[in-house]
């Protein structure tokens, strides 16, 4: 997982129980690693391009996890398919893992 992807996943999973959060991150990491190479290359390229602005903002202390999630929400409404799908991919992976782990943790 690229550094920006890890930031996104960590931000999306910020409300997950702290004991479960590493498992969510590990699942997303494994899922990204096992994608077909050409799809993974596309996702990585988007991470590099889309990650530029948040990286700069973070460097000057203007973007925390909540701000990053708000920015991702805006991207999810983008009219550009690959941008919208990028956010949807990562948020879907986090959502699936979070809810499945919640089931596992339920009494």
């Amino acid at each position, binding site marked *: 997982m690229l550094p920006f992807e890890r930031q996104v996943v960590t931000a999306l999973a910020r409300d997950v129980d702290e004991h479960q959060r590493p498992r969510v991150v590990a699942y997303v990491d494994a899922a990204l690693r096992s994608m077909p*190479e*050409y799809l993974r290359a596309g996702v990585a390229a988007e991470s590099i391009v889309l990650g530029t602005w948040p990286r700069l903002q973070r460097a000057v202390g203007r973007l925390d996890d909540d701000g990053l999630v708000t920015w991702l929400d805006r991207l999810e409404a983008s009219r550009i*398919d690959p941008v919208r799908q990028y956010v949807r991919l990562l948020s879907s992976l986090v959502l*699936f893992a979070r809810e499945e782990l919640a089931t596992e943790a339920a009494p």
Partner: protein
Amino acid sequence: MSRLGTNYLETEVLIIGSGAGGSVTAASLAAAGRDVTVLEEGPWIEADAMEPFSLEEMVAKYRHTGLAAALGSPGIVYAEGRCVGGSTEINSGLYHRLPASLTDEWRTDYEIDEFTPEILDRYAQRVEDSLTVSKVPGPPPPSSAVLERGAAKLGWRAVEFSRVFRYEPGGRAVKQTMSRTFLPRALDAGARLIPDCRVTRLVRRGDRITEVRCSRRDSSGAIEALTVRPEHVFVCGGSIQTPALLQQSGIRTHIGGGLKLHPTVKIAARFTESLDHRDVPMHRVTEFAPNLTIGGSASRRGHVALALADSGADYRDALDDWDRVAVYYAAIRSEGSGRVIALPGLAAPLVTYRLTDGDMSRLARGLVYLGEVLLAAGATELYPSVVRGAVVRSPDELVQWWDAVSRSRANVMSVHLTSTVRIGENRARAGADSFGRVWGLSNLRINDASLLPDAPGVNPQGAIMAIATRNCDQFLATT
């Protein structure tokens, strides 16, 4: 007899892949006394080791952990098994014979010998006799009864489909996957199974495959090369991996084109009563079959969350109430088609699929009809798998979905992939002869979903197993 050296193996029959086609082939040929070796890329996983459709199962048994997609507009997410038993380990276990009308159509269009409804029914009967095909004893679970109830209110046909399940005396339902049925029979008859072994290339000399090159992961995790020298090869890797391997091996004529699948859209439906979530509904609305089928999907909490999130609407209240939410689908037979293209140096092939405007229209119709059934059954909220798709609470609101199912907004998925090496004597259209032998190669056969000339509109496992059994009989009679 097989001989296994440090890194080479000789065998009479090599079967690549252990899903519905490969396992049937292994059991048939081993029972006939042939020396059989099965190579499976994925691992052996004990039958009850994981909960069906769970996160753990997706990581262990699904190829690409379920993250594969056919590129197109829209892209189509699809799932394949990658473990001993193949996709039979991860599917819902619904069982169908091939409809007679399709058998007749395919025989005519592709000039397939010995391919009549009577012949295929005979082979289907053999499969059913050796694989428990049954219906649920007693009343259906609530998530399935929903479809029956909704269809009855609309005056539409709905049926409970048979499944490859065996019911134990205590009521436990056990899916009859290949790792529980045909593979153990093959091993008992002397077949050898090598899991964690990926085939990278078939080596051709003249009109024969003389060597098969593989990389095998040993128990310590180390990768080693393995070369197999077979007399006969059956490739049974499924409709994506089979054409990819053939193309990587320089075999390309009518290989990989014509990919077919069942494009599917979904709805997360909220009811006032609790639903079951451990099983997949076995009822299907067949009023518009085979061109449009309405059914139910896996609905664990993770699946419910994903389906609720698809539309982008606020779903937190519904997710908190997830015990009353289940996921349903509408699947179509598609006019469009796709392609599998092996890319040099990459393990995964490029997969594309083009939906026609007619397909998009059918998906919209399917979504609306599915909504009608669910509302008739008592659903109070419907969340469609359409970006910015309106949450619907009454039948008069469904009209909004007709225009919403567009290429840029529909989230489309599929599980049934077929038709990348079609059979038939029509060499202008088929990649293999009537019994799966690849044109121009005397000892290379295909025996999996790739052979079906089109997507059948139903779960293809029954058709694959019947056709594979038929092809094995022909092989045994002629070889």
